[in-house]
């Protein structure tokens, strides 16, 4: 019976090791053995372009944000800047503040990420007149 256990655990360990390879690439890369892995800069540029569409609609904004939130990363400041400007074009203040709440949540236990992003986005927030959840007292229950 133990031999069966060892055989199963060996194959389990091997497939776990294989899937570890894919986990090293955090975002939407499929685990192809062929095909290029997208670089971080290409990924960022693609998302900045997505949110920069001049006539983006509300659905595309929501879909983009939800997809972005699904990845194993906190979006870069330039992607968030593009998303916040899209909110401005759509007159959607609620989504703009929600984006800030979302990135704070995405950072999880890493408490240094959110203050850094607010620092980077401060010029944009001032220009577009977006208050942070903290300024509105919305960060407490």
């Amino acid at each position, binding site marked *: 019976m133990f031999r069966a256990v060892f055989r199963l655990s060996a194959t389990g360990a091997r497939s*776990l090791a294989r899937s570890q390879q894919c*986990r090293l690439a955090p975002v939407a890369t499929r685990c192809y053995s062929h095909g290029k892995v997208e670089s971080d800069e290409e990924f960022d540029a693609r998302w900045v372009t997505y949110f920069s569409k001049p006539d983006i609609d509300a659905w595309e904004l929501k879909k983009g944000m939800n997809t972005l939130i699904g990845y194993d990363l906190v*979006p870069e400041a330039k992607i968030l800047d593009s998303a916040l400007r899209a909110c401005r074009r759509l007159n959607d203040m609620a989504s703009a503040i929600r984006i800030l709440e979302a990135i704070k949540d995405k950072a999880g236990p*890493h408490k240094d990420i959110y*203050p850094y992003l607010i620092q980077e986005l401060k010029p944009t927030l001032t220009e577009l007149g977006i208050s942070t959840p903290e300024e509105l007292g919305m960060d407490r229950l």
Partner: protein
Amino acid sequence: MSLPKPVMRGLLGKRLRFHLPIAFTLSLAAAIAFKYTVTEPRKQAYADFYKQYDATKEFNAMREAGIFESVRPSGE
């Protein structure tokens, strides 16, 4: 003083790569510990009990106690 850029990618992957092997190892250890502290002693206890078990003697003891309907105690 402006904040330096922290790591923002692959945070969950890093956490899983650390915690999943530990989780699997601990689970396996718990299962092995349970097997050798609970199930093996239990199996041994049953084996020891039945090694010297005399079914006929036990049956007769039950019969004399009068619990059966199909066979009455030898006295009646």
